[in-house]
């Protein structure tokens, strides 16, 4: 594939590009969904696409195609070069400096070729076991949206016209179970999943199914609460969503467009002193790791928030130049050009046991699910639908639903009163349990 990319880049230069870069993704995926013990849907997929970015002087354009035939690649080059002739020149556009390119491409153990060797029947069996475990956990689990096993094997290859070329493979394996609980006419769903790069590290289907069932059952009989201002505890997955909002606000494109509540806050205190947020793309075997970013720059560990102080933005080459800063090696590629993305993003663990956190709350909300899109990235205003468990006198008491939690992200992060000691790297963004001293909970 490096040869194919080199040909494409050479051709782009012959057609008038002054510089170019390109990548290919080749992808094989399988998924099996089992519902109520029967196979529901099995999917096989093979896909590939090539994406090209060209510079003609300081003007830039992109093109992509899923057809890798010679004629199609000729068209790809022609389209990209002719598009670049109509876009506006921008002095800051261009490839990163060669001195920044990744040297040796490290093996981050992102691939597990043997893990994919399971037969389809064996993959179906994993999904079936996960769902069966959920159905067996509690008689109130009466229905199911199914259990699903999926695996994906991909190869990413990147090259630029300056001579950098690199390639790496990734694997992923996931199992998710989504049971439905019912009692007295009340029906509730929930789910649990696990995803890994090595199949052998996948949690057992029985454990995933059991947790999914417990999550669904604990929502039965949910009540509403009266509108109140109270402490709110976010469970680790929900706390991770708050960390993602920070990542969105420190991304280069949001900042240079002025579309972020963290514009101009580099070096300022934006969160309580106990808050440290790190992005680390070098963790071996981790879901967000990659040996180089979408512009061929080596990934690294970046401290974004250091004890409450905003210490780094998340930048690719172009947004860095716009802000007068070096790239933080967070370029991500899609067919449309370059964007930024975090790798393994996490809120560093604190020292509070989640159980003690709950004990410290006289009356408040423990959030287990958030829905909706009520986050204004420009102002930080926050208002989302929530599901959870009400805390009375330091105890989790009854489930609650049909309520909202609202505040402002900057105020919320400054109002963090405790950070849990329970950080687990479960997904690309991870967090321990988090206690925010005061938010407005709207209900009946």
């Amino acid at each position: 594939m490096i040869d194919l990319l080199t040909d494409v880049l050479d051709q782009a230069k012959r057609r008038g590009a002054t510089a170019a870069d390109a990548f290919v993704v080749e992808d094989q995926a399988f998924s099996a969904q089992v519902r109520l013990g029967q196979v529901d849907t099995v999917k096989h997929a093979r896909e590939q696409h090539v994406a090209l970015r060209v510079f003609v002087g300081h003007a830039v354009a992109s093109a992509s195609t899923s057809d890798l035939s010679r004629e199609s690649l000729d068209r790809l080059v022609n389209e990209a070069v002719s598009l670049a002739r109509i876009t506006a020149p921008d002095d800051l556009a261009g490839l990163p400096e060669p001195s920044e390119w990744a040297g040796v491409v490290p093996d981050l153990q992102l691939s597990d070729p043997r893990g994919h060797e399971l037969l389809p029947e064996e993959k179906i069996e994993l999904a079936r076991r996960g769902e069966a475990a959920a159905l067996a956990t509690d008689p109130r689990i009466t229905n199911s949206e199914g259990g699903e096993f999926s695996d994906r094997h991909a190869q990413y290859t990147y090259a630029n016209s300056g001579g950098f070329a690199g390639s790496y493979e990734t694997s992923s394996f996931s199992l998710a179970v989504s049971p439905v609980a019912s009692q007295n006419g009340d029906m509730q769903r929930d789910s649990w999943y696990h995803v890994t790069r090595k199949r052998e590290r996948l949690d057992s289907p029985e454990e995933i199914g059991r947790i999914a069932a417990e999550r669904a059952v604990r929502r039965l009989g949910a009540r509403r609460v009266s509108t109140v201002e109270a402490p709110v505890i976010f469970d680790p997955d929900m706390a991770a969503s708050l960390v993602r909002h920070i990542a969105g606000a420190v991304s280069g494109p949001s900042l240079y467009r002025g579309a972020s509540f963290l514009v101009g806050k580099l070096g300022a205190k934006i969160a309580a002193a106990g808050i440290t947020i790190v992005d680390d793309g070098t963790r071996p075997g981790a879901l967000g790791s990659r040996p180089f970013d979408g512009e061929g720059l080596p990934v690294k560990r970046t401290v974004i928030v250091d004890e409450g102080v905003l210490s780094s933005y998340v930048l690719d080459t172009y947004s860095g130049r716009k802000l007068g800063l070096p790239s933080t090696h967070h370029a991500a590629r899609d067919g449309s050009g370059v964007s930024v993305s975090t790798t393994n993003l996490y809120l560093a663990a604190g020292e509070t046991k989640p159980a003690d956190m709950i004990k410290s709350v006289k009356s408040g909300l423990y959030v287990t699910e958030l829905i909706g899109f009520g986050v204004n990235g420009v102002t930080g205003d926050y208002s989302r639908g929530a599901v959870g468990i009400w805390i009375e006198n330091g105890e989790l008491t009854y489930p609650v639903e049909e309520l909202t939690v609202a505040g402002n992200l900057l105020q919320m992060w400054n109002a963090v009163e405790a950070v849990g000691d329970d950080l687990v790297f479960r997904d690309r963004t991870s967090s321990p349990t988090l206690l925010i001293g005061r938010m407005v909970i709207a209900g009946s």
Partner: protein
Amino acid sequence: MLARPERFFEDRFGLTPSTMERLLGSTLARRVDHADLYLEYRVSEELMLEEGAVKKAARHVSQGAGVRAQSGERTGYAHTDDLSLPNLEEAARQARAIADQAGTSGIVAVGRHGTPHDLYTLAEPPIAADLGRKIKLLGEIDALARSLDPRVRQVIASLGSEDVIVLIATPEGWTVGDVRPLTRLNVTAIVEDNGKREIGSYGGGGRVAFDFFLEEGRWRHFTSEAVRQAVVKLGAVDAPAGSLTVVLGPGWPGILLHEAVGHGLEGDFNRKRTSAFSGRVGEKVASELVTVIDDGTIQNRRGSLNVDDEGMPTARNVLIENGILRGYMQDRLNARLMGLPPTGNGRRESFAHPPMPRMTNTFMLAGQDDPGDIIRSVPRGLYAVNFGGGQVDITSGKFVFSASEAYLIEDGRITSAVKGATLIGNGPEALTRVARVGHDLQLDEGVGTCGKDGQSVPVGVGLPTIRIDGMTVGGTQV
């Protein structure tokens, strides 16, 4: 630009309807309850202006085939982006592997296929329009936005266009094709005043030619709306928290219907009995003032289709009639398993995804009331006219949608603008509280995208002004 779908796939890939039928026939016939082959060729283009210049231009081509075999409740689906015949045969073999165990379901014969509609034949599809004209328009939008208010700091204008050619073959011996143009123009303005920043966005489009944006001053309207919304939000006060009477303005606030009832009435959740609306056809689920329609046959609309992605002509389906639940939206699988006719709602994001029941254009019919009277009827409440996205938990019925432009109503008058807030309710109950319905039904401008199970499809919504007595508003003012 592109002629008949049958000719297109024949010329480019040597795939004729008879090749496709033979492929399905030899590989799949008689062993499964349903099988289909879906070919897709998609060309798309994106242009984006920011900081006064078009800095991003991209063009994408994707092509591929999806092969599906169904037996009983089982679906085997294989897709590939290699449209060669041997490769399609391999995909068909993989899809069949799952359905190999003999089917056991009672088959409901799908007798009526009807004739595809002709809803969006265009002299020039938007993707074929001259790039120079498109770039000029984006520049004019930037200039207009900056001239409207000195507080405008940033203008982001984007224009996306695509053309999708599909050809669908089933072993019942028929092949149907469709050429689907789609375009969308979006304007975002960021304003700043005394260090305070706000954002406003507006846009529209449909299965229309590029000239649509130049007609009736539409691009000017989109631009001035984006700036106006951003400026209004600069002066917004904290939104109230708690249960309030809510008046929704016409048009895009129809997202209420999409979340509160639309998803819950999709056939898959009801066949599985995991929807809060399962088994409730014939029951009262809304006020008698409420009639909700899903209509994929409206000329040139973003959510419209000549045929759905299983080759069924789309239809105008009554979901709720005078408050009574009338029916679900179906694809072929769920219709067959429920013993009901398909409704033309089988849709997929692309060849890489199997179809499932999805909405098209979902709206509430107009009522009798004057919109001004509806507002005057509210002593204290919230008037919400623009929304961001929404989401629903199908099983519990709880849904949210987030207001991006809203005002307080005090003593029957619209007063202060309030900050964005999420509204939350319970689907089977929320529409029973609809107390007034205006005569001003509007469809949205053509910007909606619906996500379900990882698949995005373009949709439309519509609503007249309505009053809902009691919705929870997620503000911060207790």
